[in-house]
């Protein structure tokens, strides 16, 4: 193959390789209109919606009981112990 012919072949090869359609790089590139991924955590709140109340109803088994209710329960238990033998 002549030198000119070889140079032409070289250019054709380079053109051919450059023209190969490559798959998108999903590992590192994002399209401009694609939002960046959010870090893990609660989802962002919609600002058009009112803020949720800070008062959250606790699950039933964790509901706080007032001190007087605990005292009444203890008293009822004591009375039941003494009332049993009577």
């Amino acid at each position: 193959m002549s030198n000119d012919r070889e140079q032409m072949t070289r250019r054709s090869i380079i053109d051919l390789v450059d023209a190969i359609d490559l798959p998108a790089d999903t590992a590192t590139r994002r399209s401009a209109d694609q939002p960046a991924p959010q870090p893990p955590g609660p989802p962002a709140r919609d600002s058009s919606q009112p803020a949720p109340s800070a008062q959250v109803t606790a699950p039933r088994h964790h509901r706080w009981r007032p001190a007087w209710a605990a005292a009444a329960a203890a008293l009822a238990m004591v009375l039941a112990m003494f009332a049993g033998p009577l």
Partner: protein
Amino acid sequence: MAPTGDPSLASVYAAERDGLLRLAAFVTGEVGAAADIVHDAFADLHETFDDVQSPPAWLTSAVARRSVSWVRRRAVARRYLQSAVPERPVAHVGDLPDRLRVRDAVSRLSPQRRAVVFCRYYLDLSEAQTAATLGVPPGTVKSRLARALRELEVCLDEQ
């Protein structure tokens, strides 16, 4: 090629990914296979990144060799499948007539010759560098390139 200094794996990936894909696609003729080959090479590089002196050269060598092996394995599979798998030309390159002629001519080359052509012409490596990249003696590079050029000339003249 990757920047000099102390590149991270991420920066090597960003710099080398497209070139390696082109190498694998040129040798295998399959962009999908090329993507797998390149990802496997990066996965292996990740294991030994600290021990590799020149990640770009290491990757070029790994991808070239894997691509040639992939074509060989496919040829064996095709023999067993009695040519059920169609021959694939070099990956999709558009529809310019001249480009299609070159693509068809290249698709007739053996994978070893394609790899040599890519290293010598596209990467512009010397014979010694090509030999080191492909793991063959320099004389083999010279003879493979000469035969590849002869084949290309014949194919292009036929068309």
